[in-house]
């Protein structure tokens, strides 16, 4: 009995000391994390807006009164409008495959879904140039039929799809796997066809995860630089998306317009962050 008491010191002393230590280390860890994030994320964000408004509201508005800028915004919206719905469908299909079926090569497909996360976007762009470019594998055939993919919208869309493919699938697959398919089976025995089953049972179960994936996919498709840069050719008023256009402006020392347009992307990031937090809470609550 005495030995046990020796090993475990009186309770009244120990906890206070423990909290004191953990308070200090916790404080250290939190302040390091907050300081790092402030330096790396918040400060740049502040700088972007500060530069954008260097010449006040008028300078800011003026930046958008420019044909090339408006064209870049319009092109980016177009690319996102094509990419996001397609990748939502692809992502749903991929997540469905991975979570509902057992088949050979399933593990390979699962890691393929993550490919865009560990392959450099530049490589994604290069692959399309090698396939569809003038000197590429399908180049001559495409030229014969007058189809232009590289240095044109299709190429930009293709490489954006490649880069953003992962989001919806990656978020949904584990969620759908965990939920199982008992409810879907119940729906089928009650006479629901495939569409009714998806619409009334599956979709309500995954809607917050799906929304989360779509938001991330959208943010990335509007902000993608590397892959698009390779295939677009930077043709002003033609194939310059917003990120590429920002670089062009910056390189031409047009700082206020460059940061004004950049602030749009920053705003998109902030909105994404807010929506992401909201959907994550809802996902947690559901």
């Amino acid at each position: 009995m005495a030995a046990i008491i020796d090993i475990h010191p009186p309770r009244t002393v120990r906890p206070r000391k423990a909290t004191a230590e953990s308070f200090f280390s916790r404080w250290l860890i939190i302040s390091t994390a907050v300081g790092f994030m402030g330096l790396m994320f918040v400060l740049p964000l502040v700088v972007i807006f500060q530069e954008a408004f260097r010449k006040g509201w008028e300078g800011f508005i003026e930046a958008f009164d420019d044909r090339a800028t408006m064209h870049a915004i319009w092109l980016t919206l177009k690319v996102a409008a094509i990419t996001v719905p397609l990748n939502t469908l692809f992502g749903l299909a991929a997540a469905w495959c991975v979570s509902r079926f057992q088949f050979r090569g399933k593990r390979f497909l699962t890691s393929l879904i993550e490919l865009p996360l560990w392959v450099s976007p530049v490589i994604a762009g290069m692959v399309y140039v090698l396939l569809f470019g003038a000197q590429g594998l399908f180049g001559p055939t495409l030229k014969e039929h007058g189809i232009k993919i590289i240095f044109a919208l299709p190429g930009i869309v293709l490489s954006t799809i490649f880069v953003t493919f992962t989001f919806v699938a990656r978020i949904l697959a584990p969620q759908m796997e965990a939920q199982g398919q008992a409810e879907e089976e119940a729906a089928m025995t009650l006479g629901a066809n495939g569409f009714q089953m998806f619409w009334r049972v599956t979709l309500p179960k995954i809607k917050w995860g799906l929304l989360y994936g779509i938001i991330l996919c959208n943010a990335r498709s509007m902000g993608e630089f590397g892959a698009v840069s390779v295939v677009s050719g930077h043709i002003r008023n033609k194939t310059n998306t917003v990120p590429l256009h920002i670089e062009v402006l910056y390189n031409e020392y047009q700082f206020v317009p460059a940061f004004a347009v950049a602030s749009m992307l920053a705003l998109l990031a902030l909105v994404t962050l807010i929506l992401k937090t909201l959907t994550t809470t809802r996902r947690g609550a559901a």
Partner: protein
Amino acid sequence: MSIHIHHISKTFGSFQALKNVDLEVKTGELVALLGPSGSGKTTLLRIIAGLEFADAGEGSIQFHGTDVTNCSAYERKAGFVFQNYALFNHMTVAENIAFGLRVMPRVTRPDREEIDRAVAELLRRIALEGYGSRYPSQLSGGQKQRVALARALAVGPQVLLLDEPFGALDAKVRKTLRKWLRQFHNETKVTTLFVTHDQDEAFELADRVVVLHEGDIQQIGSPQQLREHPKNEFVADFLDCVMI
């Protein structure tokens, strides 16, 4: 409606879960499928419902003489109550029960008032009046079980497949529900196949009992036949009676 199961086998990878099963459930019969855990009871039920497909070959399944071997679950529309309920968690109790009616094709679908009336009637039947607007997470196990049953019954199935309907409930609730099911079956005479690993339950409820072991049917017979003439060691041992 009768169910004919003819030479059904099921293999998962290299594991044979069902071995050449033959079984007939007559119209209006209440048959119990009895067997130890892992004997293939759920697998057989799922194959009958069309949620799983038997190994290709000579096996076939007929509903009332019509071959449904290659029909999907939603074409067969067998009422199925799952071992773990599988209620729609994002729908209320009333919406759960109404589901089967709401997904009917427009021509045969009852109108909204008829559906509401049918749901109210079913809620009364399962003694859950006033629970219609609750969500499944707000129900006890026994209540969930009854909702699952009502949901399956709403579409008026010709065949009812129950997978351990009272499995997760305490002895007292089991007894009440058992009585309730027997009475319900007497009233409606829906052809019913229910799974259990509780022999008392099987003997008390069923017209006939099927004993399954390692995917093989050991014996089919009335409770009395089984008790008095167990066919082999396993049946005798499992039913805890002496072989004569």
